[in-house]
């Protein structure tokens, strides 16, 4: 190992293939080897899923893990007929709740950040304290509450609690961001005759687009992946979200691996599309679970 290996290098602009070749010669090769080894095992389940998703039953019985011809893309059609409804439900649920959550959280965070109203810190603490409350404590009473409210087996049984719960962390993050915005800008707008609402709408929000995006993606991720709450509150197949729909699909189609795996692939696509378009926000959103307080 050479002495200089650990040094950070300035960004070098060169053609991709050339950079890889140079890296290979520079003595980084064993790092690449290690990383590729890890990546191989990380991606292996997904690769095998894709391979199996193109098989019919005899093909799977004889050669379960290698590519077999002819491919059966019709598995995807079959899976799509079942999974599409769950995807749509998840999009409706996560989509509605993220819009509602971001609007309410932005308004509340703005109030906390920019107005010294009496009781401000007390109210803010009232929001923050909820960060300490895990879902395990509230699951049962919340279930009985929505049952009494007659919300069971409706879309609102997911959307309303998601909006409520999602606000907590969002308000915490947004308040910090809003407080750090330069006050001069708002003053200038006010001198030009803007009222409070216009300042918020036309200056505050546009300046905060990226943090709002992070908060929104975090919320989409957590609601999209939620299992237990939809499981206990939804009964009818028409309303099931992706997580519990796939779970039911697995139970019903057990051993019909081709379409089942095709369903898993289809189920992963929406978030991958979201990731493709917003990768930076996405990465921040994923890791901000870690910044919790």
């Amino acid at each position, binding site marked *: *190992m050479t002495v*200089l*290996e650990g*040094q950070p*290098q300035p*960004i*070098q602009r060169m053609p991709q293939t050339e*950079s890889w070749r*140079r890296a290979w010669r*520079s003595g*980084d090769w064993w790092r690449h080897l290690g990383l590729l080894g*890890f*990546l191989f*095992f*990380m*991606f292996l389940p*997904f690769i*095998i899923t894709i391979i199996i998703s193109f098989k019919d039953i005899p093909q799977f019985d004889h050669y379960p*893990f290698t590519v077999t011809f002819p491919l059966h893309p019709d598995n995807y059609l079959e899976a799509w007929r079942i999974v599409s409804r769950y995807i749509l439900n998840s999009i409706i649920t996560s989509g509605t709740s993220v819009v509602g959550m971001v609007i*309410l959280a932005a*308004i*509340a965070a703005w109030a906390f950040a*920019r*107005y010294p109203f*009496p009781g401000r810190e007390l*109210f803010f603490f009232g*929001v923050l304290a*909820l960060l300490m409350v*895990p879902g*395990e*404590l*509230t*699951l*049962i*009473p919340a*279930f*009985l509450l929505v049952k009494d409210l007659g919300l069971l087996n409706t879309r609102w049984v997911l959307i*309303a609690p998601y*909006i*409520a719960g999602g*606000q*907590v962390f969002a308000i915490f993050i947004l308040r910090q961001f809003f*407080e750090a915005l330069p*006050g001069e800008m708002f*003053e200038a707008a*006010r001198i030009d005759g803007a009222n409070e609402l216009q300042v918020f709408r036309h200056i505050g929000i546009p300046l905060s687009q990226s943090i709002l995006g992070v908060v929104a993606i975090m919320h989409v991720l957590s609601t*999209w992946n939620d299992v*237990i709450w939809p499981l206990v509150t939804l009964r009818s197949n028409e309303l099931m979200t992706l997580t519990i729909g796939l*779970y039911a699909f697995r139970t019903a189609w057990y051993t019909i*691996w081709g379409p089942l795996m095709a369903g*898993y692939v289809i*189920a*992963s696509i929406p*978030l991958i599309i979201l990731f493709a378009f917003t990768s930076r926000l996405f*990465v921040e959103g*994923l*890791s901000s679970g*870690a910044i*919790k*307080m």
Partner: protein
Amino acid sequence: MTTEEIRAPASSATVARSSAPQERQATLGQRIYRYRFVYLMLVPTFALLLTFNYYPAFMGLYRAFFKWDIGLQPEFLGLGNFEKLFIRDDIFIKSLRHVSLLTSWRVISAVTFPFIVAELIFNLRSNVHKYTYRVLTILPAVVPGIVILLLWQFIYDGTHGLLNAFLEGVGLEDWQQPWLGSPKTALYAVTFMGFPWVGGVTVLIYLAGLQGISDEVIDSSLVDGCSGLRRIFAIDIPLILGQFKLIIVLAVIGGLQGWVAVFVMTAGGPGTASMVPGLWMYNNAFLWNKMGYASAIGMFLFVLIMGLTILNVKFVKTGDY
């Protein structure tokens, strides 16, 4: 909390300048009246929080002291539920052992494998490569959790599973098992799923820490002839202890809350061979309608998790990360 210093917002500054003397004399009622629209802004937020968060939280704490079966009048038990939980409920005690194993492995795997990957990426020379590997490691985190769980269920499958096929391929037919279906292996199968245990987010956190180490430190260590493994142990690890602490706390909390994975993979079975406390709570509540007893388990988990969260806030500062 990180917001100790509340900056005077611009809006109040404008108001204050025009009416500074009155501001000081304004009574609480007047000040509340002046900001009435702000309270209005908070109404929807708090209406939802009170209904769906505060009420259930207090109800959960309160009903933990009751015998509370659906359809029957709640009956006050005092500490009865907790007495039963810790003294007479063998399955709960067993589930505590299981969750300790699950959580221990989570912590061990979270401080080793992702750190190795982060070091490998960090020490690459080309920034293009660093970026490529970062994106590739984070990519699996985008796949919905349920898909990953169901895939691992397939990997462990007794007749069609990948693991058994692999064992056959390398001549270890004797080792083949219905991994999730056998009481001997179910808990271990659930514990060790996720090979090679490299969480993309965890890698990113370590990487952020490594990138925060100043170039001077690394340079001078190189001048002193400290490189390779020695540098990792003498410089990198001590300097990113904050990240390690954060990840350990997150892994412990994740282990306690990770019962959903057990639910999907084995439902705690076979029998109760892989039961964990969260799932035991779920079963008591939603299979047997013992809401009060389940609330007691919920309260136990709450106290545990809150303790850890406080530790997290106290010892792991946001600035570390």
